[in-house]
C-alpha cells in the first residue's frame, strides 16, 4: 500500500488472463455437470411412464451466473494480494472497538430483556409479530437448552429434537388420558425428558464426538419412527389434537363468565391468550437462562466446561465423567421437555412431522452460529434464523435450500460463531474474557 512498485511485484497483483480463462472454463464445465444435469432435465410422470421435460434456458442462466460470479471474484477479490484486501485497522482503534463492543455486549442482555417485557404492549405489535416472537422465543429456549449439552459440555447432540418431542407428547398424552392440567404436566414433561436423556445417554456417552453425534441422531429418528407407527397410543401420522390450552392459574381464556377477561373485568379479546402465551414462553426461556447461568458457577457447570476442554484431565482429577455427561444430557433434555409441552399447548395439535431431524439441525445451527456457550449469541442467532425464515416465507420451497446454504457459509465464515469469547465463571480480581482460540470445542481434536 505504501509503495506502488513494491505492491506491483507482489504475486497476484495483475490478473493472469490465461490462468483466469482456464479457471473459468473449468468452472463452466463443473457448473454444467452439476446444474446442466439436474436443472436442464426433469422427469415428469406421463402416460405409460416418465417423460423428460427440458429447460435448457434456465440451466444456461444458472451456469452463466456461476461463471460470472467467479469472474467477479477474480476481478475484485482475488486480484488483490493477500493481506491488503481488507482495510487494515490500526491496533488502537481495533482494541478500542473491542472495548466498545464489550460494553455494548454488557448492556445488550438487559436491554433485550426490557424490550421483550414491553414488546406485547407496543403500538405496532400485532398478532403476527407476537406469534413470530413466540416462535423465536421457543427457539431461544431450545438453543439455551442445547447450549448446555453442546456449548458447555462439548457433546454434539444431533437428536435434541427427541426431547422436545417427548415433552410435547408427554403433555398431550397426560392431558388426554388423565386430564392433567398444563401446570401439572409441565414439570412432569421436563422430568420425563430428563429421564429419557439419562436412559438414552447412559450407554452412548463413552463414545467420541462424532460417533456420539450419529448415535444421538439415530435416537432422534427412533423416537420419531415410534411416534409415527404406534398408532393406538400416539395417533401415528395423524398426531394428537384437541390438546388443552393453558389457563391463567385456573382462569381459562374464554369468552363469558368465569374466564380471564370476565374475572379481571376486561373486554374479551383473543389477544389475551396470545399475550399470555408470549409471557409464558418468555418466563420459561428466562428460567432456562437463569438456571444455566447459575449452574455454570456451580461445580457441575465447571465440570461440564472442564469436560469440553479435556476429558482425560477431568478423570485424573476424580471427576466421574459419565455422570458429568449424563447431567448435561438430562438437564439439556429437561429444558427441551419444557419447551415441548409449551409447543403442544400453543399448537393444540402435534404430530411426528414437527420433530424431524431438520428441527435438530436448526437448533444446532442456532447454537453454533451464536457461538458455542454464548447465551446472548443464541438470542441473536435465533432472531436471525427464524426471522430469516420469515423473510423467505414467500419463497416457501427455497427456504430450506437457503437455510442449508447459510449453514455452510456461516460455518466457513465464522467457524466459532458470532460471539466466541468465554466469560469465566469465577474470578479473583478482574473478570477477563477468554479468547476463542483458547477455548476447546468439545471432544475430538
Amino acid at each position, binding site marked *: 500500500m505504501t509503495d506502488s512498485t513494491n505492491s506491483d511485484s507482489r504475486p497476484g497483483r495483475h490478473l493472469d488472463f490465461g490462468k483466469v480463462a482456464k479457471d473459468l472454463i473449468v468452472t463452466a464445465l*463443473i457448473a454444467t*455437470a*452439476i446444474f446442466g*444435469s*439436474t*436443472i436442464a*432435465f*426433469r*422427469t*415428469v*410422470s406421463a402416460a405409460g*411412464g*416418465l*417423460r*423428460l421435460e427440458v429447460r435448457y434456458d434456465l440451466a444456461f442462466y444458472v451456469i452463466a451466473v456461476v461463471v460470472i460470479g467467479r469472474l467477479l471474484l477474480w476481478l475484485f477479490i482475488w486480484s488483490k494480494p493477500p493481506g491488503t484486501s481488507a482495510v487494515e485497522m490500526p491496533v488502537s482503534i481495533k482494541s478500542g472497538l473491542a472495548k466498545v463492543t464489550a460494553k455494548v455486549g454488557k448492556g445488550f442482555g438487559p436491554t433485550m430483556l426490557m424490550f421483550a417485557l414491553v414488546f406485547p404492549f407496543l403500538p405496532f405489535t400485532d398478532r403476527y409479530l407476537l406469534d413470530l416472537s413466540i416462535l423465536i422465543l421457543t427457539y431461544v429456549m431450545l438453543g439455551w437448552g442445547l447450549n448446555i449439552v453442546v456449548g458447555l459440555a462439548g457433546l*454434539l447432540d444431533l437428536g435434541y429434537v427427541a426431547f422436545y418431542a417427548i415433552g410435547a407428547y408427554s403433555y398431550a398424552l397426560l392431558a388426554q388420558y388423565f386430564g392433567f392440567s398444563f401446570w401439572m404436566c409441565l414439570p412432569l414433561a421436563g422430568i420425563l425428558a430428563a429421564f429419557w436423556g439419562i436412559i438414552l445417554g447412559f*450407554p*452412548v456417552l*463413552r*463414545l467420541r*464426538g*462424532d*460417533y456420539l*453425534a*450419529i*448415535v444421538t*441422531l*439415530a*435416537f432422534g*429418528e*427412533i423416537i420419531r*419412527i*415410534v411416534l*409415527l*407407527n404406534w398408532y393406538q397410543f400416539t395417533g401415528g401420522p395423524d398426531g394428537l389434537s384437541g390438546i388443552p390450552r393453558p389457563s391463567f392459574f385456573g382462569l381459562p381464556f374464554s369468552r363469558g363468565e368465569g374466564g380471564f377477561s370476565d374475572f379481571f373485568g376486561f373486554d374479551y379479546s383473543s389477544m389475551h391468550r396470545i399475550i399470555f402465551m408470549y409471557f409464558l414462553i418468555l418466563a420459561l426461556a428466562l428460567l432456562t437462562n437463569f438456571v444455566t447461568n447459575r449452574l455454570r458457577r456451580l461445580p457441575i457447570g465447571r465440570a461440564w466446561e472442564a469436560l469440553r476442554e479435556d476429558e*482425560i484431565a477431568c478423570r485424573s482429577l476424580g471427576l466421574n465423567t459419565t455422570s458429568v455427561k449424563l447431567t448435561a444430557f438430562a438437564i439439556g433434555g429437561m429444558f427441551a421437555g419444557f419447551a415441548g409441552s409449551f409447543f403442544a399447548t400453543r399448537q393444540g395439535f402435534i404430530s411426528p412431522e414437527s420433530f424431524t*431431524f*431438520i428441527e435438530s*439441525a436448526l437448533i444446532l*445451527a442456532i447454537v*453454533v452460529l451464536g457461538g458455542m456457550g454464548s447465551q446472548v449469541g443464541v438470542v441473536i442467532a435465533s432472531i436471525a434464523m427464524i426471522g430469516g425464515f420469515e423473510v423467505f416465507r414467500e419463497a416457501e*420451497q*427455497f427456504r*430450506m*435450500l437457503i*437455510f*442449508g*446454504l*447459510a*449453514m*455452510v457459509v456461516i*460455518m*466457513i465464515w465464522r*467457524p466459532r460463531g458470532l460471539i466466541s469469547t468465554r466469560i469465566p465463571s469465577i474470578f479473583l480480581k478482574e473478570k477477563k474474557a477468554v479468547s476463542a482460540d483458547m477455548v*476447546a*470445542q*468439545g*471432544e*475430538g*481434536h
Partner: protein
Amino acid sequence: MEYFLQQLINGITLGSIYGLIAIGYTMVYGIIGMINFAHGDIFMVSSFIALIVITALGLTISTGLGLTILALILVLVTAMVIASVYGWTTERLAYRPLRGSFRLAPLITAIGISIVLQNYIQITQGARVKPLQPIIADGYTIMTRVDANGEFAVQISNMQILIIVVTIILMTIFSLIIAKTSLGRAQRACEQDRKMASLLGINVDRTISMTFVMGAALAAVAGLMFLLYYGVIDFFIGFVAGVKAFTAAVLGGIGSLPGAMLGGLVIGLIETFWSAYFSIEYKDVAAFSMLAIVLIFLPQGLLGKPEVEKV
C-alpha cells in the same frame, strides 16, 4: 426354509447397495476423520441422474438385451462422472476451507450440504416419488415348494444377479486401486499421518479430493442399482440410506474397504429379515438400533483395529 432362502437373496442384494455407499463413508472417515453427512445425498442425486439418462435414452423393458446392457453402461458412466463432480465440488467448497478447524465444523457444513442437496433436488426434480418401470425382467427359479398353502418359489431375478455381480466387480477394481496404485498408496499414507505424507511430497489436497471422487462414483453405482431394483426414488432416500450405510461402515470397521462391504451385507440382511419376520414399519428402527449397539459394543468394528486411548 424356502422363505428364509428368498430373504437371504433379497438381503444380499440390498446389502450390496449399502456396501457400495458405505465405502464412501469409510474412505472419507479413514482419511480425514469426518462423517461426510452429505454422502447419502450424493447417492440420492446420482439416482436421479440415472433416472434422467434412462428416460432420455428411452430405455424400456422391450429394449433388446444387448442394447440394454450398452445403455446401462452409458447410464452408469454418466451417473458416476456427474456424481464425482458433485463429490469433488462439495469437498472443495464446504470441507476444504475448514480443514484444520475444530473437528465438528465440517460435520455441521456437511449437514448443511445435505439439506442443500435434498432441497435442490426437490425444487428441480419435484417432491413426488418417481416411478420407473422395470427394465430388466425375468430371473431364475431356484426351487419351488408345494404344500397346503400353495406354491412358494425361491427366485433370483436377473436384476439381483446384476447388482451382486456389478458390486463384486467394482469392489475388486477399487480394492486393486487402493492396494496397487500410487493414488492408493497416497491415500493410505494420508490416513496414517497427513503431515508426514505432505512432507514426503504427497499432494494431500489432491488425494483427499480423489477420495471424495471415488466415494461419490461408488455411490452413483449404488444409486443406479437402487433405482433399478426398487423402481421408485424421491429426494429423501439419501438420508435413511446414508445412515444405514454409515452404520455398515462402522460395523465393518471404519477405514476398511472389505469391512464396509461386509457391514453392508450384515445391515442389508438384518433389515430384510426384520421386515420379513417382524414388522416392516420398524425396519429403520432396527437399523438405527443396530448402529447404536455396534458403536457401543464394537466401536472398532468387525474388521477394524481397536483404538488405544492415548494418555
